[in-house]
């Protein structure tokens, strides 16, 4: 039987990705990242009743088939690659039908590709609302393509498209009339052709999007717009911390009670220790941060879906220009506050390769969600929970400073790079601002669900594995009978920690931190589970602890408070701002820069900056505390 593959192509903001989500629901292969469709995503449309099964591929949004940026190149390559045998490939050109005079430009270019094409007029709801009259039959005739109308913001709106897909197998569109469109090979010719078509097929009332204009009076106002932008970003970070406290407490107490139940169920011994000290403590320490990560992704999605993200990039452009970058770098950097990996992938929209490299370089400096567990733990232990000037919480101020130091470091690094190795001229910044839209709640939750799933999967696989491995390493080999130090010192982890301790001693790090840093290089948040495991195993084995239950109840915060000094805590915080502790980031950087050169330069320079700043913090700290 022949397979059919649908290639969704369209400009950014055409609603293409929403359409993809509605058609494929959870049957998707690649997780989507906020900001942009950076990689082509594939999924399956499946209807149980009719047994219709179609592969759907969502390509990155593009304005033209004359590619400048990498995501446009990906799109073009996929569109032009010949279909393999027995596969029917059909291009679905998705356009914002409230703005055909712009969006048909891409459709005309797609027509020149020798593949069957279907025009999807999206945002039908807005067409009706704005009282735009479109003669679909005429458009279909002029462009010689089948036309389907949809509105990707609700399920009802894709009824037409679903009906069309169901009929597709008996009624495959053919490649029609390519030659006439090959002649339209400049923007002028295409736009002139579009004007001619639209003058006969579309009636647009004179004033169509007053709402966007009204909102922009505030949000794009030179001064007010900037203030509102700063407020929005501050509100976002504020929400990440304050909204998450209740769900985090809930997760924490749930994990604690699971630990207690398991402790009671399993008799004392290795199995109990593995379950409680290894798995539950390790995985639990990371799972706690799910709420914060989701809140951050919630805001990024909201900015993107509402149309504000492009405005934020516009507002940031002037400031990014000072360090030799442009507004488009802002979106990847904002995503990097959640995770540098989607951030680095989102740099594909930046057209200038040197600007792109500089942005990739900056991404891991942004305080990602994996650093939060470490920050919160250390701040909780070393920074008093007092008010400053009767208004600001000192812990909050320190958290803000850590974010700011990361951003400052990134700005300095980018500035230096753009003045030296990555020297380049001011590039162009041409961007379309979408009109404002109400985000679709259902798609928002689908998106958050996908993010949560990804995070829990990571906690359930990678972090679970590291936790178990670390428990083994810190438990075995068992010390001999006459061993009078804590048992962990005899274990492999303890020995490795002690072995590398001298390297980190100038930073005030003890062997426990040194032990935790090793798995921490794989992923930052593992440090917390590592410390939790190391301290738990140590406490469980220590002879001086009389009441064993008492020891497990002492929170990690208290344990590290007793074990380390304030300068050590501050130095470790500083280390975490800059240290290159995430393998996945460098793996992605290698993939995106096509080689090891840049990831290695990034890794080494971050390591040097981290060591130096932590050293300085510790040495200065010892003078004061």
């Amino acid at each position: 039987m022949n397979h059919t593959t649908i290639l969704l192509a369209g400009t950014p903001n055409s609603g293409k990705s929403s359409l993809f989500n509605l058609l494929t629901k959870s049957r998707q292969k690649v997780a989507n990242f906020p900001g942009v469709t950076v990689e082509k995503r594939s999924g399956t449309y499946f209807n149980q009743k009719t047994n219709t099964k179609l592969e759907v591929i969502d390509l990155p949004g593009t304005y033209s088939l004359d590619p400048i940026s990498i995501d446009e190149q990906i799109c073009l390559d996929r569109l032009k690659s010949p279909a393999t045998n027995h596969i029917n490939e059909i291009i679905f050109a998705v356009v914002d039908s409230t703005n055909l005079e712009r969006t048909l430009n891409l459709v005309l270019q797609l027509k020149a590709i020798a593949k069957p094409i279907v025009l999807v007029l999206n945002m039908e709801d807005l067409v009706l609302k704005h009282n735009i009259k479109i003669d679909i039959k005429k458009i279909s005739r002029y462009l010689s393509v089948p036309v389907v109308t949809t509105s990707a913001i609700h399920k009802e709106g894709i009824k037409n498209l679903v009906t069309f897909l169901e009929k597709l197998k008996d009624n495959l569109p053919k490649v029609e009339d390519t030659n006439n469109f090959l002649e339209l090979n400049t923007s002028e010719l295409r736009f002139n052709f579009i004007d001619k078509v639209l003058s006969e097929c579309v009636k647009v009332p004179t004033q169509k999007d007053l709402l966007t204009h009204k909102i922009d009076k505030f949000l794009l106002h030179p001064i007010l717009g900037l203030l509102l932008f700063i407020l929005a970003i501050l509100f976002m970070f504020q929400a990440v911390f304050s909204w998450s406290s209740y769900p985090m407490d809930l997760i924490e107490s749930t994990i604690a009670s699971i630990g207690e139940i398991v402790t009671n169920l399993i008799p004392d011994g290795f199995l109990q220790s593995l379950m409680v000290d290894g798995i539950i403590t390790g995985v639990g320490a990371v799972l706690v941060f799910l709420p914060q990560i989701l809140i951050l992704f919630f805001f990024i999605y909201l900015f993107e879906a509402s149309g504000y993200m492009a405005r934020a990039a516009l507002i940031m452009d002037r400031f990014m220009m000072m360090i030799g970058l442009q507004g488009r770098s802002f979106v990847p950097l904002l995503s990097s506050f959640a995770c540098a990996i989607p951030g680095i992938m989102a740099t594909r929209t930046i057209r200038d390769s040197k600007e792109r490299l500089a942005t990739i370089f900056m991404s891991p400096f942004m305080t990602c969600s994996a650093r939060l567990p470490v920050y919160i733990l250390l701040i909780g232990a070393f920074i008093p929970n007092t008010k400053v000037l009767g208004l600001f919480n000192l812990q909050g101020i320190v958290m803000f400073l850590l974010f700011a130091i990361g951003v400052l470091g990134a700005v300095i690094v980018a500035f230096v790079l753009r003045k030296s190795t990555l020297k380049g001229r001011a590039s162009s910044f041409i961007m379309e601002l979408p009109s404002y839209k109400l985000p679709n709640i259902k798609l928002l939750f689908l998106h958050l669900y996908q993010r949560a799933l990804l995070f829990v999967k990571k906690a359930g696989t990678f972090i679970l594995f590291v936790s178990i491995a670390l428990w083994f390493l810190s438990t075995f080999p068992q010390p001999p009978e006459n061993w009078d130090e804590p048992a962990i010192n005899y274990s492999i982890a303890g020995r490795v920690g002690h072995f590398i301790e001298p390297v980190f001693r100038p930073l005030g790090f003890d062997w426990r931190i040194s032990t935790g840093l090793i798995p921490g290089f794989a992923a930052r948040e593992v440090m917390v589970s590592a410390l939790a495991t190391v301290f738990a195993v140590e406490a469980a084995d220590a002879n001086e602890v009389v009441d064993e239950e008492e020891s497990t109840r002492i929170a990690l915060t208290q344990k590290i408070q007793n074990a380390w000094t304030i300068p050590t805590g501050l130095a470790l915080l500083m280390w975490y701002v800059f240290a290159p502790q995430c393998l996945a980031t460098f793996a992605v950087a290698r993939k995106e820069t096509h080689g090891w050169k840049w990831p290695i330069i990034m890794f080494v320079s971050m390591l040097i900056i981290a060591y130096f700043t932590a050293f300085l913090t510790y040495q200065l700290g010892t003078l004061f505390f």
Partner: protein
Amino acid sequence: MKPTNQFPLTKLSINQTAKIIGYQTTHSEEFSLNRLKEYGLILGETIKLYQRSLFNGPIVTVVRGGLVSIRQHEAQNILVQVDAK
């Protein structure tokens, strides 16, 4: 001498409408004319200034029913003409 109703796009005042009559490449360091045209800024097209930003940041224009932002140094290279009254 240039007629007084012809000037670079950057000189338009907000909500003022003009027609694109030419491009010059002297000011710019990297002038991607093709890209501008892909976004609809073709010769003869009507263009309106929508918004400016602080410190000579990018300007926002209305072209072919959409909002397009352009950096100052690029906008300087787009010559427009307003209808003489």
